[in-house]
């Protein structure tokens, strides 16, 4: 059951971190105090080397197993078969994972040489330091075998740098726990002095503190890149695994805090007063040095176990698609946040002061409670009054204004954050149009305005699907209503319409609404964003251009009919930063323009231009570099796009003013 790769990854990570941790511990914690340790130091150094070599062996074996299992998986063969047909060589020499594996093999060989050169009999700090550097690199190189390897561009470099630091910090802290326990046991057996044990524990605490800080900072960066949103954190397997990892991390930090804040000072106390230490050592209480050392060692092992559990989760995270790549995160709550109310001036006037009141009330309340707590020593009788006052202000502030919060929440469904997998393509929209005519037009009307004949006698009229209100709802909301219906006002269509059909319908509803609004605005909209349907065109120089890959250029789309040859020739002589895309609907010479042979795109563009299918000849559209439709022109419209000055102004207006995000109203659907 389950993917064996998860276990192998976990073992390899644990072995790598343990190896690096032991060597870093030797160099940074024990190294500087080795001289004072004398002979006892040799015993401890020997113990560290044994941890390092055993970890090295485990890392080697699990590393080979990882390579073999992975090669089998990506070539879809059994593990035994990869040695023939050169599959293993192909993986090693021609994949990112393979290159990383070879690089780490080299590092492992260098590390083995470095470790072999360390004599545990003598103090050998420089060699420990070299080994620590190599081991750190060995651990950090793991980034190329994980999700960070797939992040592209400069963000990818940044991601891998953060992830590398994450691994080194984890090695230093998590990998150092077993060596720490070893040191504490040696102190308990009185092989090394208490003072040295205290020094080492304090040094490790500092190292731990720096590591935790680094882990939090780099963890946030990684999490933001790979999960990236609240729905992804809550609604995807990846996000939930990540939350579990964070919970375990906090538990580790809590145990480390107990070690640092309660147990280590106790150790310091016993160290700084030797006569007491004599007495305490024989006292069967919990405050003696032996008991403290035992508690510290035990807590370190507890932390190490928690860390091991984290590594299991890491193994699973590595084989799960990152949350930010999951198109369909499921939302478990009945409400979701919506900033739509901030777009309405009246609502904003009520909302903003209320939010300030809530925030202010909470702040005052907390301050009063804190002051009350501080005043405990100086004015003990005042404290209960201050705390009570603080609590009252905080609770009253929140309770009185809480109803206002319904303005920033909206009803939500499990599918609310689903994103259509269709990419808003022309064929999806056209198919959606056909489905709409068959299933929806009877109530919602042929053009979706809510004026269908079957709906005329309903108590609650079918919605006008071309209204601005449509923007208040996510694609995922529609994806819920279509199969499930809306309460008693819309019947469920779950049986009749499968997943693909529902997304097609949703794409059509969006396109239809946008087209209607474009029509109402007279076709001139330079700053409201209407998403352009996906298009893909082949250019004369062999490159391809598409809606999402315009590379900073404005796209000028022309539905090219029989008479468009001259227009296209005229346009080609223009602005280099504007890419001309012809969608031929007849046999016409398009010259140097890029060509999008897509009948369905022409149909959809005709709809956006307010024309019937097949009547869109000569329509022209401007799309900004972000893929947003900004303006439409039909032959005969004024101002005339055939005038070069007018074109220049249009394009300049688009470049200067990025499309504003559409403001949407807030709404709670009734039964």
């Amino acid at each position: 059951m389950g993917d064996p790769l998860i276990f192998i990854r976990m073992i390899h990570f644990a072995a790598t971190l343990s190896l690096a941790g032991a060597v870093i511990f030797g160099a940074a914690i024990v190294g500087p105090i080795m001289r004072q340790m004398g002979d006892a130091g040799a015993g401890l150094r020997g113990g560290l080397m044994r941890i390092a070599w055993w970890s090295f062996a485990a890392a080697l074996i699990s590393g080979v197993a990882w390579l073999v299992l992975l090669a089998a998986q990506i070539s879809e063969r059994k593990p035994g078969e990869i040695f023939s047909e050169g599959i293993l060589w192909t993986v090693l020499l021609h994949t990112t994972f393979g290159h990383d594996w070879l690089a780490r093999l080299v590092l492992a060989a260098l590390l083995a040489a470095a470790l072999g050169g360390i004599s545990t009999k003598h103090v050998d700090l420089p060699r420990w330091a070299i080994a620590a550097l190599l081991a750190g690199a060995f651990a950090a190189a793991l980034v190329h075998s994980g999700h960070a390897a797939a992040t592209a561009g400069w963000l990818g470099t940044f991601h891998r740098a953060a992830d590398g630091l994450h691994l080194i910090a984890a090695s230093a802290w998590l990998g150092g726990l077993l060596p720490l326990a070893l040191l504490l046991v040696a102190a308990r057996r009185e092989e090394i002095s208490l003072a040295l044990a205290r020094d080492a524990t304090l040094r490790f605490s500092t190292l731990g503190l720096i590591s935790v800080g680094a882990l939090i900072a780099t963890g946030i960066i990684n999490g933001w890149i790979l999960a990236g949103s609240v729905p992804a954190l809550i609604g995807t397997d990846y996000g939930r695994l990540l939350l579990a990892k964070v919970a375990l991390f906090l538990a580790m930090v809590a145990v480390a805090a107990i070690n640092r804040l309660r147990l280590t000072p106790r150790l310091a106390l016993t160290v700084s007063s030797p006569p007491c230490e004599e007495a305490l050592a024989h006292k069967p209480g919990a405050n003696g040095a032996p008991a403290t050392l035992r508690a510290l060692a035990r807590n370190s092992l507890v932390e190490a176990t928690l860390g091991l559990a984290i590594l299991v989760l890491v193994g699973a995270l590595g084989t799960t698609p990152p949350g930010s790549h999951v198109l369909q995160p499921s939302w478990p709550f009945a409400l979701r946040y919506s900033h739509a109310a901030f777009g309405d001036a009246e609502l904003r006037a009520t909302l903003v002061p209320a939010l300030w009141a809530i925030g202010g009330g909470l702040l005052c309340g907390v301050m009063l409670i804190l002051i009350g707590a501080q005043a405990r020593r100086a004015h003990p009788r005042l404290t209960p009054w201050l705390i009570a006052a603080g609590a009252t202000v905080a609770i009253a502030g929140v309770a009185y204004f809480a109803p206002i919060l319904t303005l920033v929440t909206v009803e939500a469904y499990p599918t609310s954050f689903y994103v259509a997998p269709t990419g808003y393509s022309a064929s999806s929209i056209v198919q959606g149009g056909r489905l709409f005519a068959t299933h929806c037009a009877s109530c919602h009307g042929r053009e979706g305005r809510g004026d269908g004949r079957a709906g005329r006698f309903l108590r609650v009229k079918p919605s006008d699907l071309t209204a601005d209100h449509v923007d208040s709802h996510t694609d995922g909301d529609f994806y819920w209503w279509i199969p499930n219906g809306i309460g008693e006002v819309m019947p469920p269509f779950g049986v009749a319409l499968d997943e693909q059909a529902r997304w097609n319908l949703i794409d059509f509803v969006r396109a239809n609404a946008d087209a209607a609004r474009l029509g109402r605005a007279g076709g001139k909209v330079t700053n409201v964003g209407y998403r352009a349907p996906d298009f893909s065109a082949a250019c004369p120089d062999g490159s391809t251009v598409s809606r999402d890959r315009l590379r900073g250029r404005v796209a000028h789309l022309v539905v090219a009919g029989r008479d468009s040859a001259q227009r296209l020739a005229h346009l080609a002589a223009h602005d280099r930063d504007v890419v001309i895309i012809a969608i031929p609907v007849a046999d016409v010479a398009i010259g140097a323009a890029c060509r999008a042979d897509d009948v369905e795109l022409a149909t959809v563009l005709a709809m956006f231009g307010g024309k019937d299918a097949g009547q869109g000849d000569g329509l022209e559209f401007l799309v900004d570099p972000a893929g947003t439709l900004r303006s439409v022109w039909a032959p005969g419209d004024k101002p005339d796009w055939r005038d070069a000055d007018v074109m220049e102004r249009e394009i300049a207006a688009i470049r200067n003013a990025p499309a504003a995000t559409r403001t949407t109203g807030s709404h709670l659907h009734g039964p």
Partner: protein
Amino acid sequence: MTIHAGTRGLVIAGVLAGAAAAYAHAHLDRASPGAGATLAAAPTEVTLHFTQQLEPKFSTIVVRDSAGRQVDKGDSHVNEEDAAVLKVSLQPLGSGMYKVEWRVTSVDTHSSKGEYTFRVGK
């Protein structure tokens, strides 16, 4: 000791949680010809855009006609400039239904596959 028992339970839970997950990674972002599309003229190549960069040696596209015969030239290759784009060239196609079968491995070593159909002619 109770602490160790508790953490042991945690480890088992984590293992079980992780064991269930083994999904694929590179998802098909956009296809040309598009999924379910009907084209007037036969395309000369199939271009697939994925959500992640691909390993060229372990990513292929196979296109078959309605009789199951392979109609591509077997030259699946990843675009040099954009490693998330996979192309294959096609033999001359007549009218009819064609199926595109793709199987890719992303650079973070996860494989996924899928298929869709498109039609040439009316």
